[in-house]
């Protein structure tokens, strides 16, 4: 049996990789992908704790997280299509109309 802390280490490393992706990349779509990495890390943590504590609650929350990730991807990609159609680039440091 693999100790629970190994799963926690893997999921926290994945979460950190996602955070770094959000911080250092310029492309908006890659930033959304990094958010997906973070959601997956949270899911792995939830399912690991749920399995080791013999409870079903964490797995149900993981299912809800998957549904929320689907909604987030749909709305985020719709926003980037609108921004791209308005001839603004897809790089986040060039989307600065609200900055003063």
């Amino acid at each position, binding site marked *: 049996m693999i100790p629970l802390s190994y799963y926690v280490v893997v999921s*926290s490393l994945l979460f950190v990789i996602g955070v770094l992706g959000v911080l250092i990349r310029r*492309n908006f779509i890659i930033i959304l992908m990094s958010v997906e990495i973070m959601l997956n890390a949270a899911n*792995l943590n939830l*399912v690991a704790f749920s399995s080791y*504590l013999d409870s079903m609650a964490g*797995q149900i929350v993981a*299912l809800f997280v998957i*549904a929320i990730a689907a909604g987030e991807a749909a709305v985020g990609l719709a926003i*980037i299509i609108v921004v791209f159609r308005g001839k603004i680039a897809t790089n986040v440091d060039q989307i600065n109309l609200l900055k003063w």
Partner: protein
Amino acid sequence: MIQTFFFYYLAAASLLSAVLTIALRNPIHCGLGLLSLLFHIAGFFILLHAEFIAAVQVIVYAGAILVLYLFVLMLLNLKTEDHYLHRRYAYFLFFGLLMAGQAFWLLLHSPFAGVPGDTTVEKVVSFGHSRAVGMVIFNEYFLPFEIIGVFLLGAIIGAVVLTKERPAGVGGGQP
């Protein structure tokens, strides 16, 4: 032990594909790295005796969400750029690593204990994981389940309204 071998394989492969997802230059390659990550996370779920979640992960994440990403990437026809990292990425990298260090410090000082439930692995295996999930989701978590349904309806309507082309003069052209 075959479980240990699979754990180390899945850990190494998922971390590698996550790094490739944020480090590769071409956005399509990043999407393929994310696909590999999602499949390996599904492997973790099977290792943890959560077969239904693994199936949902493959069908919804790798089958629907990732196809949506690749579809938009190919629709936008992005060019591979030279400066694909942020201008001040070293600055952000420093603060990200600082945050990571704090997260690990907190992890090392937190107890990994909890109150065990009554859904043991033997019980789940005896009547199947999908049935176990269904019994819990439609008894204890019925209200959150319905709220998720309303949320998804809102996301559908939001995506359609955002990407709709408005005729000039009626809604005032571009939103």
